[in-house]
């Protein structure tokens, strides 16, 4: 598995993600700058968390014009696995590689906490090592994670089993009380029609080793290595 993490001005989870991919997952991993366009050799491209271009205008709005994102779009069409984490998810939405948009959290607060997530689909390359309905514990850290899509898009994604994670309680019950940001249908992660581009708000790279307080994030890397 040859992987890269695309670094934008304002990314701040790039080093953690690089560490998780290289040291925990054991992937041959590079850090690539947002101006790079030669991303053809990678099997996995990760857009990390942070505040790319300061999140000015809208989170991800400027980043999706970066030269590297053209290569990411081409790679997505070829079936290369693309993972957007937090700000990376926002970038993939602005780029149109995933449907929907992010609104400000309904609380208006920046939410930085551990959450429980129910795995809604194990039929993805990112969750194949998880159990169906398994509850994962991961940290979130965002101010704009309030996922929005029109009702038809939500219905279609549900029908096609493209909603990968929902915020839940520790038993896996999905309800409004365990929705940290107001996301439609408690959505925390989705995958594209082709099944190779996933966005998720929680941070698997922050919970891939026991020293960090949790290891469920490693399930994502284990899935990718299958």
């Amino acid at each position, binding site marked *: 598995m040859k992987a890269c993490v695309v670094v934008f001005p304002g990314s701040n989870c790039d080093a953690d993600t690089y560490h998780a991919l290289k040291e925990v997952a054991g992937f041959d991993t590079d850090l690539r700058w947002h101006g790079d366009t030669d991303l053809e050799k990678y099997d996995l491209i990760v857009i990390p968390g942070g505040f790319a271009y300061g999140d000015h205008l809208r989170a991800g709005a400027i980043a999706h014009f970066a030269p590297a994102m053209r290569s990411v779009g081409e790679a997505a069409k070829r079936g290369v696995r693309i993972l957007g984490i937090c700000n990376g998810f926002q970038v993939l939405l602005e780029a149109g590689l995933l449907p929907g948009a992010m609104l400000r959290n309904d609380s208006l607060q920046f939410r930085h906490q551990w959450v429980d997530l129910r795995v809604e689909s194990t039929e993805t390359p990112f969750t194949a090592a998880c159990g169906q309905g398994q509850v994962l514990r991961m940290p979130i850290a965002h101010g704009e994670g*309030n996922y929005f*899509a029109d009702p038809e898009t939500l219905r279609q994604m549900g029908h096609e089993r493209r909603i990968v994670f929902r915020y839940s309680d520790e038993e896996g019950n999905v309800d409004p009380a365990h929705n940290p940001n107001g996301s439609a249908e408690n959505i925390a992660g989705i995958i594209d029609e082709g099944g190779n581009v996933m966005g998720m708000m929680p941070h698997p790279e922050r919970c891939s080793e026991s020293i960090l307080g949790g290891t469920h994030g490693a399930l994502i890397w284990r899935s990718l290595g299958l």
Partner: protein
Amino acid sequence: MSVSNYRVTVIVRPLDEVVDPEGDTIELGLHQLGFEGVANVRSGKVIEMVVSAADAIHARSLATEMSEKLLANPLIERFDIEVGQGSVTQQ
């Protein structure tokens, strides 16, 4: 072809069907200040610029293209454009 500089204002608003937590919070604050007759507060953004164009119609069409490509996200926002009368100095 001669070009002039036009002062252009783009107003970006959340779509009516999209929740606007910021607008809701502003409304709450206004109520707490005693402005109880305030409702339907919506919060957006204003983007001002000076645009070189052949005429005001051209300036508007450029601003429309900018709004569609970058300034607004059509899934959650709509936009209105104002083009100032006459040319201004571009600094």
